[in-house]
C-alpha cells in the first residue's frame, strides 16, 4: 500500500512536468500576442520591445526559457512574474485562493449532499411524482451551462438587478474574515450555480446505482433477516455509494473549470477570475500558474480518491 502511494505521487509529479511543458508550448506557439508588445505601451519602438524581451528573457531559446521556468517552479515553487502587473504569480494566486476555496468547497459540499440526497430519495420512491420532478429538474440542470444559469440567477434573485431582490448580486463577495454573514449570503447564488450541474449528474447516478443495489441478493438477505427497512436501506446506500465516489476525482476538473465561469459571472475575486483576466491580457505567466495549480489539485484528488477507495471497499487492494 505504501509503495503504491509513493508510486502514485511520483507519477503525479511527472504528470505535472508534462502539463507544465504542454501549457508552456501551447501559449507560445499560438499567436495570442507578444507580451513584450503589450507591456511597451502605445506605439512602441522596436528597440524598446527588444529591450523588454531581453529583460523578461523572451529572446532566449524556448527550451532554455522552459528549463528556467521548470527549475524555479520545482525548486522554489516560484511561478515567475506577471507580464501585466509585475506582481509575482505566486502572490497573485495566493491572495485569491481564499475566495476560490470558499466557492469550490461550498459548492462541492452542496453538490455531493444535494446530489446523493436527491438520488437516494428518488431511488426509494421510484416512479413517484417526487422522483419524476427531481429527475426532470436534474435533466434541465445538466443541460444548462453555468454562465447561463449564473446570469439567470442574477436576473431573477440579485438584490440590485433582480426580479425578486433576495440575494446579494455580482461583486458582493467579502472574505470570511471580514464579515462571515456577508461572505455567506454573497456566496449562496454562486454555490448553487456551480453545484447545480454536478449535483444533477450525481442525483441521476446515485438513483441508478441505488436502484440496482436494492435488487441485489444481499439486500434480500437483509430483509430475510428481519432487519428494519431503514437499516436495509442503509446497507443499500453503503454499497451504492462506492461507484459514485470514484467519480469525485474526475469531477474536480469540472468544478475548477466551473469556478472560472462562476467567478467571472459573479465577479468574485478568485483564481478563476484571475485566470480569465490573464487570458484576455495574454499574461502567460499567470495563466500557466493557474493551470498548474488546477492540474495539481486534480492529480491530488485522484490519488486521494484511489486511496480512499481501498478503505471503502475491502475487496480492493493495491500492490
Amino acid at each position: 500500500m505504501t509503495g503504491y502511494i509513493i508510486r502514485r505521487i511520483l507519477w503525479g509529479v511527472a504528470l505535472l512536468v508534462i502539463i507544465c511543458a504542454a501549457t508552456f508550448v501551447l501559449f507560445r506557439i499560438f499567436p495570442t500576442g507578444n507580451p513584450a508588445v503589450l507591456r511597451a505601451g502605445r506605439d512602441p519602438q522596436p528597440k524598446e520591445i527588444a529591450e523588454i524581451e531581453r529583460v523578461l528573457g523572451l529572446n532566449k531559446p524556448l527550451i532554455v526559457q522552459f528549463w528556467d521556468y521548470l527549475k524555479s517552479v520545482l525548486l522554489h515553487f516560484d511561478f515567475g512574474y506577471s507580464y501585466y502587473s509585475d506582481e509575482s504569480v505566486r502572490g497573485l494566486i495566493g491572495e485569491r485562493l481564499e475566495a476560490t476555496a470558499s466557492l469550490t468547497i461550498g459548492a462541492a459540499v452542496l453538490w455531493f449532499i444535494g446530489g446523493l440526497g436527491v438520488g437516494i430519495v428518488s431511488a426509494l420512491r421510484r416512479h413517484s411524482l417526487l422522483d419524476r420532478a427531481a429527475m426532470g429538474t436534474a435533466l434541465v440542470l445538466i443541460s444548462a451551462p453555468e454562465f447561463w444559469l449564473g446570469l439567470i440567477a442574477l436576473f431573477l434573485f440579485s438584490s440590485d438587478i433582480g426580479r425578486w431582490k433576495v440575494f446579494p448580486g455580482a461583486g458582493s463577495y467579502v472574505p470570511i474574515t471580514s464579515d462571515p454573514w456577508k461572505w455567506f449570503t454573497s456566496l449562496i447564488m454562486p454555490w448553487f450555480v456551480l453545484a447545480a450541474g454536478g449535483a444533477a449528474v450525481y442525483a441521476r447516478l446515485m438513483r441508478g446505482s441505488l436502484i440496482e443495489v436494492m435488487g441485489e441478493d444481499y439486500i434480500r438477505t437483509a430483509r430475510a433477516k428481519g432487519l428494519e427497512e431503514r437499516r436495509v436501506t442503509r446497507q443499500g446506500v453503503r454499497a451504492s455509494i462506492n461507484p459514485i465516489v470514484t467519480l469525485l476525482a474526475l469531477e474536480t476538473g469540472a468544478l475548477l473549470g466551473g469556478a472560472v465561469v462562476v467567478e467571472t459571472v459573479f465577479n468574485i475575486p478568485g483564481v478563476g477570475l484571475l485566470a480569465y483576466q490573464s487570458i484576455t491580457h495574454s499574461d502567460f505567466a499567470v495563466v500557466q500558474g493557474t493551470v498548474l495549480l488546477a492540474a495539481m489539485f486534480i492529480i491530488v484528488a485522484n490519488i486521494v480518491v484511489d486511496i480512499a477507495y481501498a478503505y471503502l471497499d475491502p475487496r480492493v487492494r493495491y500492490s
Partner: protein
Amino acid sequence: MSAAEPLLRVEELRVEFPGEDGVVHAVDGITYQVHAGRTLGIVGESGSGKTVASLTTLGLTRRQGANISGRISFEGQDLLALPEEQLRAIRGNEIAMIFQDPLSSLHPLYRVGAQLAEAVRAHRDTSRAQARSRAVELLGLVGIPDPARRAQEYPHEFSGGMRQRAMIAMALANDPKLLIADEPTTALDVTVQAQILALMERLQSELGMAIVIITHDLGVVAEMADEIAVMYAGRIVEMASAEAIFARPQHPYTWGLLRSIPTLTGPRAAELEAIPGSPPSLIRRPSGCHFHPRCAYAQPEHAVITPVLEPVPQEPGHQVACLLAAEERARLWSRLRAGNSAAQAQQAGPAGTGARG
C-alpha cells in the same frame, strides 16, 4: 405423519406478478404442510414457482407488486394477513431462509461477524458485544474453524462452502422453528454439497427445527426430506413421502426427474434420459395439464382437462395430479424402471411384460 397441527400450512397459495408482457402465474394454487422437526423437499425445474412460494411465506414478494391469495398459517397465524411490522418480527427469527448463491447473498462490504451480529440484534435486545460473541459461537456451530478470526473477515475472503456455512449460521441466529433453504447447494462443488447437507441434518437433529429444502436435484432431497412435493409450472403435481416418491412415483414428470439422475445400482440399460423441451412460460402456460407438451404419454384430451391433486389408490398420503389412469401409470413405471425408453414403455402389452427381467 404426525397428527398434530402442522407448523406451516400453505393452502391454495396463488402468486401472480402483473408485468408488461402479461401476468406471470408464478404459483398457482399450491397446498402443503410442514410439521415441526420434519423436512419437506420441494422439487422442480427453475421457473416452477418453488422459490416464489417460499419468498411469499416470508412476505418478500409483497414489495414486488405481487397479487397473492390463499392462506399461509404459521403456528396458527395467517402470515399473508399480518402487517409488515409483525411479519418482520417473524422473519429471520422464527422462520429463517438461506439462498442459492452465498457470495451474492452476503453484503460484500461488511464483515461476516457483523452481518451475523446484525441478525441477532434485529430480534434480540442484546448488547453489541453479546451479539458479537453470539456470532462467533454460531460460526463455530456450523463448523468454521477459528471462528473468532473468521468473524473479522469479509465474505470474499471465505470459500464457497464457508460462505454457505456462514449463511446457515446467520439463519440459525435466533433459533428458528423453520428453516427454508432455497437451492442451498446448487452453487457449490459436489464434495462441499455433501458437507453442507450433512451440516443441515446435524443442526436439525440438534436444534429440532423443521426444514423446507427447495431444489431441482432429487438426489439432494433423497438424503434429507421426509416428504417431497414435486412442482411444475406453478402447481404441485405429486406429493408423497420421500420413500414413496422414489419407490412408486406416479407422475410422468417425476419419472423424468428420476430418470435424469445417474445411479450406480440401477440397470445399465437405463440410459440417462433428459425431459424433452423446456419449462413453459409462466405467462402463457399450456392449457389443461401444463406438462402435456413434454409428456410422452399425453392424450389429446389432456390439453383440455386440468388435472387436480388426487389420492393415489392404496397409498395413504400419496397424491398426484395426472390424467392417466392409476393402472396405466403403474404399468408405465414398471416398464421404465426395467430399462425401457418412454416409447418402448408405451407400446401396448400386458402390464409387467418385459419388466423385472
